[in-house]
């Protein structure tokens, strides 16, 4: 890394030799403008976030005052008739559906990325990479309708097999009980997995391709199989970027609205089974915002949005901490 940095600096240093180079004062003012533009752009982006958080906090203040923070997060009551609100089932639903999506999407993304960067013949790489990335261009409402109309009926045929096979296992069997409806937490997780797959796999593929060929070829020369190269050479080399890509996908899964609303079944009750319906924070917002009439109801919905931002923030922090820990370990080992 350091070597290439120096090389770039030398290039810049040799630039004034060009007689047509702009004068130093122009360069200074141009430089100043560039600096100023960069600062303004950053302030705008950061300012938008802070302004959003401030506005959401202000609008949810009524609910924060009424229910408090801890009580709102841990209470399962969500009753617009009695005007009592609690976020617990939705926080759980958001985390569970996203976790399922990650469990399914990460290995598949890894396989896709390894196939494209290592195994596939050259002529096949671009079309496959393009096809996977196209998944990201499909609007989420289409995923929702596809999930409801196409996937759910098929999945309903598979669910009896799932509950018969896994339902009998003590412990995790509880996760696979219930009538085969084709919709529910597991369906939502699977649809989400398809949606976040292109994000994770394209980042993995890009960073795998960036692994120096000297490393890769050395490993092959020593007799490694493609699996050993991928698992022992490429993955450790690109670990922080891969984790970054995974959390990008997770962030998307946490905030997904329409697709989840269609297939999750929208029940405010927490169920131990993944085959049963649930709800996430974004799905409740999508469902109930239009018809929320009282100030406390609207305020509580906005409060849910604030909690979603907090959940995403915590997840990001965890990602940063994880990358830092792995980074320091890598540094120590090299």
């Amino acid at each position, binding site marked *: 890394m350091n070597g290439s940095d120096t090389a770039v600096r030398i290039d810049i240093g040799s630039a004034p030799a060009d007689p047509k180079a702009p004068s130093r004062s122009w360069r200074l003012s141009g430089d100043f403008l560039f600096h100023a533009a960069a600062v303004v752009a950053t302030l705008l982006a950061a300012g938008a976030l802070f302004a959003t958080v401030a506005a959401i906090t202000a609008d949810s203040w009524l609910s924060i005052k009424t229910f408090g923070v801890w009580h709102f997060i841990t209470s399962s009551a969500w009753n*617009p008739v009695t005007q009592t609100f609690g976020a617990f089932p939705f926080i759980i639903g958001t985390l569970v559906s996203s976790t399922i999506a990650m469990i399914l999407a990460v290995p598949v993304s890894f396989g896709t990325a390894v196939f494209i960067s290592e195994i596939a013949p050259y002529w096949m790489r671009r079309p496959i990479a393009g096809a996977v990335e196209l998944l990201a261009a499909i609007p989420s409402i289409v995923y929702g309708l596809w999930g409801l109309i196409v996937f759910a*009926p098929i999945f309903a045929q598979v669910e009896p097999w799932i509950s018969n096979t896994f339902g009998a296992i003590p412990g995790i069997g509880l996760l696979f009980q219930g*009538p085969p409806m084709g*919709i529910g937490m597991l369906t939502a997780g699977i649809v989400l997995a398809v949606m976040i797959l292109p994000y994770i796999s394209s980042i993995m593929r890009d960073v795998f391709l960036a692994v120096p060929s000297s490393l890769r070829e050395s490993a092959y020369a020593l007799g490694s199989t493609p699996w050993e190269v991928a698992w022992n050479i490429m993955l450790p080399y690109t670990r922080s970027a891969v984790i970054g890509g995974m959390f990008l996908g997770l962030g998307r899964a946490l905030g997904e609205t329409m697709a989840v609303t269609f297939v999750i079944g*929208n*029940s405010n009750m927490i169920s131990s089974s993944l085959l049963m319906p649930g709800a996430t924070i974004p799905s409740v917002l999508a469902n109930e915002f*239009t*018809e929320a009439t009282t100030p406390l109801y609207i305020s509580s919905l906005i409060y849910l949005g604030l909690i979603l931002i907090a959940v995403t923030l915590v997840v990001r922090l965890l990602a940063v901490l994880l990358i830092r820990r792995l980074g320091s370990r890598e540094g120590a080992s090299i």
Partner: protein
Amino acid sequence: MLCSVVAYAATSVTGAGSTWVYPLVAKWSSAYKAKTGIQINYQSIGSGGGIAQIKAGTVAFGASDMPLKPEALKAAGLIQFPTAVAGEDLVYNLPGIKPLQLVLSGPVVADIYFGKIKKWNDSAIAKLNPGLKLPNMNITVVHRSDGSGTTFTFCNYLSKVSPEWKEKVGANTSVSWPTGVGGKGNEGVASYVQRIPGSIGYVEYAYILESHLADARMINRDGKAVAPSLTGFQDAAAHVDFTKAQDFYVILTDHKGPDTWPISGCTWQILRKNASKDQNQQVMKFFLWGFEYGQQQARSIGFGPLPPSTVAAIQTYWKNELGYGE
């Protein structure tokens, strides 16, 4: 430039609210435009949004499936009147049982939606359906997941026939359901019911006309098993004395009459008292035209026109509340 703005303002009226009444307003407004050249823009953003928009004065009329209480209207300087009557059906997915073969009653539906009646061959259902072979099948309850006037009307009915429902669940555009799965919109509920054998759900009657779902007959307040029909909804409206109710604050569920459909509903249009006379009259003219000339169109999409006595009561109400009428 100014002229064109004024001309535009004179020939266009904007409203927003209920998604339930949207097909009706859309149908009426296109015919009205052809007749008078006046454009009615209606945005189906939901009843809650409609109420908020009319309070803020950004639209000329708001539409809500849940009437505002007279006190609330007074406090906000609003008036409201009914538009048309409609109804809701209970739909089911039961192999071998044809549309309108199944008979249900209010208390039984309440117990199903409480999760107390779990099987289709439960004695409570069997008692209502002598001679019908009910399967030994689990009942899956389907409800609306999005806030909706349909949910309000349905739960209002259940609250009237089941004291326990009134106490534990109540009625609103969204409620805390004791059991079941939630589908988004009529199409969401319909597709869940089509998908899940043994399921039951409630959808707007207008939606039944389009889909091929089996719907149930209901025991009404007079104790008769009736099939959902436009005349059944209109009978509900006819047995309600709109003229006596302040600000037309009457819910049409569970009323008397031999043919009355018990889960009938209505959509209310809301106006601001201090809006310009011209603007309010534009809105009033449009709905009056719909009451008179839009009846056939209303029927074709599953809405029952208001009886003439109710229309007359609305006209009197306008005069009394605003000091001018149409």
